[in-house]
């Protein structure tokens, strides 16, 4: 309804002549005039349309004007509808009209003065129009508020969704200002670096993570300023001092006041790749060893046999025989070395009888010069040969790892203690070979102890792959054995012991197993493809 819309004016009177005269008086207002001959008819009209003003005669048969007004006021829709009573001037009527305290009520006395009636009706009609307009504006306003609220809600949902996504990401997502102060730190960053959000907010990200930049920080800053983004690998440190390598993507925020940063931990990936390269290199070395072995072994046999024939040949005098004996002895050494380093039977498919104490002796021989150099003494106690069924190459790998670690732990000398004995525990079904390897070296930091057998764990930073003990444990478990570790310190000396238990003889368990080296290569290959 706009300003020019007609208002409905309901005229109620039982006398048609009066209705006619009201119509004539009000026609020039330009409103819509509706006639009703009785209170009932009036109510009917009221229900049918929106009426601005009811003009009614007080005295009507059946239901009079006051009764009609009462009925209207009881209905919530008509409580505010304007009413103009027309009555002869009785005092009682005036009093009753004044009794309608609320609502727009007026009266006109008879004889009706046309100007007055027009003026009163016109005021009420106008009032009604204004009210309707106000209501419409209100409704529009409400609708607009509703729409706005809905849009805000949607925005908020979107923001919450994005925040949830940021928290869901395994990457470390960081926002910092241009001075490097942390503004945002997601749970991926908490997980990667070990620092909680509240601990780092407002602090310098570079100081917290001790970030090392490949070409210096100024290079990063320059690229960020020019191109708006920077990609590269960074070296950082976690809260407990672990070095991590991250693939970092930085971008300048649109307003140029902050830098967004996403860091993905690629430490394990790099190490896996490195380990794979090493495994490949070892495999290549193995193939090479095979070829060399063949080329050396053939002439070696011929020379050995020659010396055997020469050794006590009747045509030689004593001195010549002595020389032949020397040559023969040296050849035994050559044969021994090729057998050890180029390993005959190294890739046998079937398990064979292996003596653990012999394997330990072989390893000691290989490490002899290193141990002598570092002033390490060996305390050997072999209660038995420690014979089990297995693959010599794997067992050699296990004990080379353990002895190698022990030797490395004693750069300033010490004692390497090797025990081998058979145990047939009452509670165990099979007899076992127990091997313990102890050193008096630097010991193991208790906080490292629980990670010792995890892959890629190393305390040797550059030198170690962190795979040695993990592979060793895997091999031992394949044999149905166990490896335990203890480190103790008393009277200023550290003693670190690894105890390996291997089942004495259990050929069945090997029926379908693969050599561990291949298995490890497969694991590495798989995890690498996975990365």
């Amino acid at each position, binding site marked *: 309804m706009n300003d020019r819309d007609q208002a409905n004016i309901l005229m109620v009177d039982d006398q048609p002549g009066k209705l006619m005269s009201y119509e004539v008086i009000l026609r020039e207002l330009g409103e819509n005039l509706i006639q009703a001959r009785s209170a009932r008819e009036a109510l009917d009209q009221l229900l049918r349309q929106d009426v601005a003003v009811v003009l009614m005669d007080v005295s009507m048969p059946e239901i009079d004007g006051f009764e009609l007004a009462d009925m209207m006021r009881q209905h919530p829709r008509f409580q505010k509808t304007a009413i103009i009573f027309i009555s002869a001037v009785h005092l009682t009527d005036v009093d009753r009209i004044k009794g309608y305290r609320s609502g727009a009520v007026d009266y006109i006395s008879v004889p009706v003065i046309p100007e007055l009636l027009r003026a009163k009706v016109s005021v009420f009609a106008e009032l009604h129009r204004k009210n309707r307009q106000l209501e419409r504006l209100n409704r529009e306003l409400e609708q607009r508020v509703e729409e706005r609220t809905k849009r805000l809600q949607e925005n908020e949902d979107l923001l919450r969704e994005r925040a949830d996504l940021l928290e869901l990401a395994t990457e470390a997502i960081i926002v910092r200002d241009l001075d490097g102060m942390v503004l945002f730190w997601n749970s991926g960053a908490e997980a990667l670096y070990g620092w909680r959000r509240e601990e780092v907010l407002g602090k310098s990200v570079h100081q917290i993570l001790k970030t090392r930049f490949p070409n210096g920080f100024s290079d990063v800053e320059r690229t960020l300023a020019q191109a708006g983004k920077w990609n590269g690998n960074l070296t950082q440190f976690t809260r407990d001092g672990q070095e991590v390598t991250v693939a970092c993507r930085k971008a300048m925020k649109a307003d140029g006041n902050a830098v967004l940063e996403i860091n993905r931990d690629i430490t394990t990936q790099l190490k896996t790749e490195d380990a794979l390269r090493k495994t490949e290199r070892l495999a290549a070395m193995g193939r090479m*060893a*095979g070829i060399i*072995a*063949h080329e*050396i*072994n*053939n002439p*070696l*046999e*011929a020379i*050995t*046999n*020659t010396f*055997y*024939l020469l050794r006590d040949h009747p045509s030689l005098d004593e001195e010549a025989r002595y020389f032949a004996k020397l040559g023969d002895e040296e050849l*035994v050494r050559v*044969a021994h070395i*090729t*057998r050890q380093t*180029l*390993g*005959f*039977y*190294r*890739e*046998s*498919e079937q398990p064979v009888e292996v003596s653990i104490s012999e394997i330990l002796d072989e390893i000691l021989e290989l490490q002899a010069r290193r141990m002598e150099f570092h002033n390490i003494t060996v305390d050997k106690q072999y209660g038995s040969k420690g014979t089990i069924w297995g693959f010599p190459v794997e067992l050699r790998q296990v004990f080379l790892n353990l002895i190698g670690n022990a030797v490395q732990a004693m750069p300033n000398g010490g004692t390497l203690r090797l025990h081998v004995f058979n145990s047939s525990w009452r509670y165990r079904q099979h007899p076992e070979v127990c091997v313990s390897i102890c050193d008096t070296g630097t010991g193991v930091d208790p906080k490292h102890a629980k990670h010792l057998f995890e892959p890629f764990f190393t305390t040797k930073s550059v030198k170690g792959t962190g795979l040695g003990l993990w592979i060793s444990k895997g091999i031992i478990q394949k044999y149905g054995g166990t490896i335990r570790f203890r480190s103790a310190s008393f009277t200023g000396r550290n003693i670190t012991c690894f105890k390996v238990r291997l089942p004495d003889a259990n050929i069945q368990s090997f029926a379908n197993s693969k050599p561990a080296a291949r298995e490890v290569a497969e694991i590495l290959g798989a995890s690498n493809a996975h990365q």
Partner: protein
Amino acid sequence: MPISDITILCVDDEETPRTLRKLILQKQGYQVVTASSGMEALEVLKQTNVNLVLSDQMMPGMTGSQLTQSVKTMWPAMPVVLISGVNEIPKDASCADKFISKIGGPELLFDIVAQVLKDYGILAELDHKTR
């Protein structure tokens, strides 16, 4: 059977190692005949009374284990010892009675040969001398 009555067929495609192996076995007291290939070895076996075959594994044409299979088919009671300079034991080598490394030295070779002969009842315990 005394050791001097036992004949060993020594097979190797290379002449020097074959001859040296023959000489050390002769020094030990055995009779030795030789062949330079698997095919030749089978010919010798048809014509000569041999008690044990000692063959190199890696030979052109017929390998030691292929020769072993042929020998065992034609003379199931013939002991065969394979000798090799390679790292790996070939998968089909299990048909031989023993598979040994070339670099074990003469004493190991004598021990293995004597052991196999004894297993076949060819060499009596008393006749076995290691040197």
